[in-house]
């Protein structure tokens, strides 16, 4: 009996979605659009986050040593740097190595180095930081600490633009979260509105049903089913569209200008499920808010 009733309700809900297909199409489209935008942002952030992480991993503090440092002092210094909080690894690059590298990099002007009597470069420590040292301020603090150590002639770290990029990225992340909230609310409002309108358009019918002895559950169930279906359909549509767009972009654009550079991934499974669940919840909540207004039970 009970399961028969659920089937009866689902049948009614689907029939009703079909009867009001224009209304539902608009609702589902709106939800899908919201989901599309939010998940596009999520996709962007999740990929940008990956890139950012790899860049962050690449951030190194270069500590240039004074000219006349002895081997023993170098070993001591190495230990001191390693003891600092936030340092993950350290690598010593002798001035000979450094010159080699410089020559390799400046291949166009090699003649420049041909006549050198003496290696003008200093020895250097390449300091790698722990992953937890995510933000720019911490990197700056660490660099200052290193600079204050004896025998360190100067430090250089990252390119300054990386600081800016991280700032922008965090701004984006924040924007993304705000947008997700706005669109969630928008979806809830839209569903609430749809249900409200369905309710209006069937007010007479529902009133009559109540008069012939229908319980509130009997009256409400189809609305809940409809709005959850709307939410799910909207969510799936949004993500599907995003996937198609993603697929088109990655298969056309990636090799052009990011081959081997980025490695674009689609949304992680957790995020995917979260989005679908979120849109379902938006449907449910919209219905709940709408019905709460009408039926004071």
């Amino acid at each position: 009996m009970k399961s028969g009733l659920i089937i009866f309700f689902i049948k009614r809900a689907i029939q009703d979605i079909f009867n009001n297909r224009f209304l539902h199409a608009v609702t589902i489209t709106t939800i899908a659009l919201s989901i599309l935008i939010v998940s596009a942002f999520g996709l962007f952030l999740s990929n940008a986050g990956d890139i950012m992480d790899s860049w962050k991993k690449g951030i190194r503090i270069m500590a240039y040593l004074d000219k006349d440092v002895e081997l023993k002092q170098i070993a001591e210094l190495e230990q001191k740097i390693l003891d600092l909080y936030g340092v993950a690894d350290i690598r010593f690059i002798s001035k000979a190595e450094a010159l080699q590298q410089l020559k390799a990099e400046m291949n166009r002007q090699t003649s420049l180095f041909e006549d050198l009597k003496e290696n003008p470069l200093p020895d250097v420590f390449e300091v790698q930081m722990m992953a937890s040292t995510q933000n720019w301020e911490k990197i700056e603090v660490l660099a200052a600490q290193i600079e204050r150590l004896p025998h360190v002639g100067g430090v250089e770290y990252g390119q300054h633009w990386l600081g800016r990029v991280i700032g922008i990225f965090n701004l984006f992340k924040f924007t993304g979260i705000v947008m997700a909230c706005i669109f969630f609310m928008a979806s809830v409002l839209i569903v609430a509105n749809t249900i409200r309108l369905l309710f209006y358009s069937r007010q007479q019918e529902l009133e009559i049903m109540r008069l012939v002895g229908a319980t509130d559950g009997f009256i409400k169930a189809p609305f809940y089913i409809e709005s959850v279906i709307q939410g799910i359909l909207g969510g799936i549509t949004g993500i599907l569209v995003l996937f198609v767009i993603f697929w088109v972009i990655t298969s056309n654009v990636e090799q052009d200008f990011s081959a081997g550079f980025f490695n674009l991934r689609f949304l992680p499974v957790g995020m995917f499920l979260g989005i679908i669940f979120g849109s379902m919840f938006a449907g449910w909540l919209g219905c709940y808010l709408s019905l709460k207004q009408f039926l004071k039970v």
Partner: protein
Amino acid sequence: MQFCGQHRKITTKYLLFLLSGQTVFSTFNNHTGKTEGMNEHHRENTIIRMFHVYKRYGAKNALVDISIDVRKNEMLLVTGPSGAGKSTLLKLLYLGEPVSEGQILIEGINLSRISNKRIPFLRRKFGIIFQDYKLIPTKTVFDNIAMVLEVTGESFRFIQKKVSSVLRTVGMEGKLNAFPPSLSGGEQQRVAVARAVVGDPKIILADEPTGSLDSESASIIMGLLKGFHDRGTTVIIATHDHEIIRKTKGRALYLKEGSIQSEDVKPTKKRPITI
């Protein structure tokens, strides 16, 4: 099944109410001036009791101090001019509106103490013919009538058989799949009658059941209602049609501006008059 459980619970509640509600009853007794003993006997046979019921809409008094008893299987005619309060009286019974003052008991259930959850089960006792029919314009005649059985969870087979048979009784078997707006006024009214009786209710409330019908169709409908009455159903008819009032045996209540002006009891075939 569910309904019976419900019913039993409500009955228990009513007994508790009786134990605590002596004042109400004594008021009633004073009013009717009958002995306690007779009333006890009465109570068993009574399906609807109204004690000093008032209904106000803003400053407007739609009903003023109505006290009546309706026995099981009684035929009650409510009559009076336009705006007298006939429809309002019926509305109070099925909780279409709450009373402003006074008490209504239906099968011992006090309507002012009933919880929201139980209202649907109360309403299933009634079969109601609304003055404005209240048919759902977007559903077919069949679905409109089937709805009454759907809400109680009847099987589709049973619903189909029952609806067809009831439509045949009111002479609308050909309009099974028509939508109400495509029916003539009288046809709509006959569908409304069919919906009211399809659930085999204990009480039929009929508000102008023949207002849109020619005399021939009207007597078919009246015959139908009388048939239910003969099989034990309590029937309350609100009408201003002199024809119906003259031809129908039973008690007639004449309302005017919300008050009972007169109670005219006409002899029924079997039962002696008790009020």
